[in-house]
């Protein structure tokens, strides 16, 4: 790109070259799918491999995340949950998001990000409360600095910007990482969020998990931009693309964006290339819109396989590590099984308790009505006082 020193733009920059906003020429990859170190990629930044301890920690989180997906997929088939949007194949994105944040930072997840939510330390049964159909959200966002999993697409991105803006005004060094899907990048709120973040120069990192599909709709029907990461440029923030099945590359790219945001460098957009290995949710049938051959192509790109090979080849995955990791995955699976197989007792009076800080007179009356109706049959733990 050429400089035009005679031209001063509305931000006051004289002929500034905007090339630094563009993503690298190809998705950043540090470990090849076969587990060997990737060849030097000539990316826009010098991303270096995280150390082995970090990768081993990440590998454990991946294995646990995969086990969470497998177990939840089984439990939803057994009717123990209302719905489960699986993130099998996308665990590296979610694990990297968690690992780049401090506990004091914030994460804003979607419905598909249960693995990331658990990685923030959210109590598993609280994390699954909405998926099992007991309530709309199971945890206190402030306890975990984690937003509620959000279904109306892209809407949470603006909340992330708001939390970051407030943090900036309050003088906190918080960084906010906001997740969304490739499909969500078409929604108006996505664009408003990026623009607000850039205009207010707030510490938000947007991570698009581009899993190639929005339910049945492939990315080509969603966008014909060179990449989703390129969308950053129009808002004046840097974009980057990364192999979303390479945990090492994700840690490097997201880590760099998070630290830059923390240092006052403003927002960034990262697009992670990954694949949704399962149907959209248990209610969907992906065979209606994609071939088994296409899915099979992604099997060897699995994020767990490649990190396992890399660590093993480097001599950093001892049998003891493998056993410890398997045990921790199993214990998480057991927590989910035990928790989701247990019957929860719900109080119908809760329906009226939280709509307002103080229930309105009308809600009190309606609560009493329901209590009276239930009095004959099952017991209600008391209407509102």
């Amino acid at each position, binding site marked *: 790109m050429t400089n035009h020193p005679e031209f001063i733009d509305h931000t006051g920059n004289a002929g500034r070259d905007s090339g630094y906003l563009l993503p690298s020429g190809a998705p950043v990859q540090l470990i090849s799918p076969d587990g060997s170190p990737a060849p030097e990629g000539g990316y826009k930044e010098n991303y270096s491999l995280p150390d082995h301890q970090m990768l081993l920690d990440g590998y454990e989180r991946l294995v646990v995340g995969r086990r969470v997906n497998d177990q939840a997929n089984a439990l939803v088939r057994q009717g123990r949950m*209302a*719905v489960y949007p699986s993130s099998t194949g996308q665990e590296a994105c979610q694990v990297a998001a968690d690992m780049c944040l401090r506990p004091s930072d914030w994460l804003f997840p979607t419905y598909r990000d249960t693995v990331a939510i658990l990685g923030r330390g959210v109590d598993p049964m609280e994390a699954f409360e*909405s*998926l*099992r*159909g*007991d*309530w*709309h959200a199971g945890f206190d966002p402030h306890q975990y600095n984690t937003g509620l999993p959000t*279904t*109306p*697409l892209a809407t949470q991105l603006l909340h992330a910007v708001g939390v970051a803006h407030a943090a900036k005004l309050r003088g906190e060094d918080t960084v906010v990482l906001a997740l969304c899907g490739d*499909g*969500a990048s*078409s*929604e*108006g*709120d996505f664009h408003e969020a990026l623009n607000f973040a850039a205009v207010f120069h707030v510490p938000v990192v947007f991570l698009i998990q581009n899993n190639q599909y*929005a*339910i*049945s*709709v492939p990315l*080509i*029907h*969603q*966008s*014909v931009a060179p990449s989703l990461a390129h969308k950053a440029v129009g808002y004046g923030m840097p974009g980057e693309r990364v192999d979303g099945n390479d945990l090492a590359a994700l840690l490097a790219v997201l880590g760099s964006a998070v630290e830059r945001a923390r240092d006052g460098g403003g927002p960034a957009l990262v697009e992670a290339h990954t694949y949704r290995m399962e149907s959209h949710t248990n*209610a*969907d049938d992906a065979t*209606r*819109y994609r071939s088994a051959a296409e899915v099979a192509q992604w099997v060897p790109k699995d994020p767990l396989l490649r990190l396992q090979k890399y660590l093993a080849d480097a001599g950093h995955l001892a049998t003891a590590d493998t056993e410890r990791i398997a045990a921790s995955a199993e214990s998480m699976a057991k927590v989910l099984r035990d928790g989701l197989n247990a019957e*929860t007792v*719900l109080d*119908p009076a*809760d*329906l*009226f308790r939280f*709509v307002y800080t103080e229930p*309105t007179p*009308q*809600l009190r009356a*309606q609560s009493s009505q*329901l209590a009276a*109706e*239930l009095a004959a049959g099952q017991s209600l733990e008391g209407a509102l006082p």
Partner: protein
Amino acid sequence: MTTMAHKAQAETPAAEAELSGVQTITFAKALTLAMSDAMAADAAVLVFGEDVGTLGGVFRVTDGLTRRFGEDRCFDTPLAESGIVGMATGMAINGMKPIVEMQFDAFAYPAFEQITSHVAKMGNRTRGRVRLPLVIRIPYAGGIGGVEHHCDSSEAYYVHTPGLTVLTPSTVTDAYIMLRDAIASPDPVVFMEPKKLYFSKDTVDLDALRARYAAGSTAPSTIGRAAIAREGTDATLIAYGPSMAAALAAAETAAAEGRSLQVIDVRSLVPYDDETISAAVRSTGRAVVIAEAPGFASMAAEIAARIQERCFHSLAAPVLRVTGFDIPYPAPRLEKHYLPGVDRILDAVDELQWEES
């Protein structure tokens, strides 16, 4: 490569032969047939939205339309509801008759501005010079164990917005004819489909239904016309869409107990059929309005007020409402406490100041 670059495979008439004659079909299939018949009859009719092409919609209501009519006529859009309705508005300005699908009730909200500021107002702003013959299909209401944002009864937002025609069928026959009437309407229609009825079935004579739309047919439009779903003499239950099944079941139970309840299916929320509904209530002198939406400032409130204004001297008791509570739609395991059911309806009927006999 663009969305339109891949043409659907050539039409295969044998494989796509449409049903005809007397058939047992689902509510969803009746909607599909209404669209495909309208598309076959008029090249200006288009279908688009999220997952409506290859997948055939998350409820399969658009199943087969892309195969039969090609990707120019039924296609997936980028994932943006304001975009979908806004583009439909432009297409309607330029000679098309779009039918757009909002995937679920609550996912129509990003399109609210387009619907309320433009779709609803275009005819009036232009002194009638620009009419928008478009249909916005919205699966709505609960009773399916859906998680949050998938079960809203959002009809009040639309009925409150002057300029929108708002329809909601509750039978397989009405699914077909009301959607055809909506497509034929010169005004924009918000077409609300009770999602728990999608897989309900009935046996219908498709040839007779189609004959209503043949050239020269004088069959009246359903727009603005309520239907009497069950005759009765003691009291009138007034319901629509997702609440019809409970109203009819309540009438059945009441009949066994010796009370004759008339049931009205409002079905055309706007324009509203004052004439039929008022006459019905005058004939019985008692009325209960039933709707799944929260009752406060709702369609049910409007119906009750209109009956009171028009039938006061015929009423033996105040008009009562049985509605959803004034709360966000509950999570799946609590929805049974929310939905207006037979018991609540019969309790209300019992309160209609019956003289001891």
